[in-house]
């Protein structure tokens, strides 16, 4: 039990180091590269792409519930341009869906 607890703490520290390394690595690597317009376009597209990828995967993995919440949030954002209104709408749709399904 003692050894198990110690290895848990060691694992937590190692995980923290790995995640911290991913946080700083991108910016450190880029200090060695001159940002040309093409690399600027690459970075800009990547910023959009990483968010698109997370949302698309979420919709593909989830059921109709997640897709309805995401599309509802998108519709509210297009109409109001207010992120909090969009998120609240998405959460409400998911909650109502869960309420009906259960």
């Amino acid at each position, binding site marked *: 039990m003692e050894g198990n607890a110690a290895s*848990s*703490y060691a694992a937590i520290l190692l995980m923290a180091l790995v995640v911290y390394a991913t946080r700083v690595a991108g*910016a450190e690597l880029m200090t060695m590269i001159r940002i040309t317009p093409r690399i600027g376009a*690459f970075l800009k597209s990547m910023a959009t*792409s990483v968010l698109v990828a*997370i949302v698309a995967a979420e919709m593909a993995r989830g059921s109709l519930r997640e897709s309805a919440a995401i599309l509802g949030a998108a519709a509210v954002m297009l109409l109001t341009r207010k992120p909090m209104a969009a*998120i609240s709408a998405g959460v409400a749709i998911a909650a109502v869906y869960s309420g009906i399904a259960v």
Partner: protein
Amino acid sequence: MAETARSTVRITTGGILSGLRGLGPIAIFVVPFGIAYGVAAIERGVTLDQSVLMSLLIFSGAAQFAALEFWGGPIPTISLLLTVFAVSARLILMGATLSPWLSQLSRPRRMLALAVLSDLNFADSYIALRRGDGDIGRLVGGGLGLCGAWIAGTAIGAIAGASLGDLDRFGIDVIMATFFVATLIGQWEGKGNLVPAVVAAAVAVIGLYTLPAGWNILIAALAGGLAGGVLHRGR
């Protein structure tokens, strides 16, 4: 992009406060997310202090939830760390995306500011930086607010435990995706964004079924970025 980056990049108290204010409402949504993590962690045999320590030191829902899969026996360290790397690797890309601004800070400041980089404050501060506000404090303040909410939620969940039941029924599991959709629509710049977005979405969905967990997001973001880079000279 290069021009916006040339405005004075700095970290100010005002910027930190604006980040706290800007992401404050979202941070409140993060509390139930943290509670869900605390409950899940306790159920996997993680102790209260370990779960809070994880939220403080790791501060990544994706990495911490993934790590729980490996708990409850002898920990397979290498598999654990590879999985944690895979689900966190998109932070490398986010850091690279912010680099035109970050590289103007001294290395110690940059590395301190990035300690609180996460999906949500990346999206928030990227918009502010693109608008020409060179204050990295926005990233730091947003990150501190999110981290505080994440730790508080974790502690509540770990203490209250399974008595809370399944929190997804309140819809909290869609917060991150809906925030990203709102961000995407808010920062949409027209047709130039379309091809990279379609490429990223396609690769993310195909990769979901063909790649080990977590890698699809990384490969999709790189593919979308490459599409944008290749198309750049063409137009």
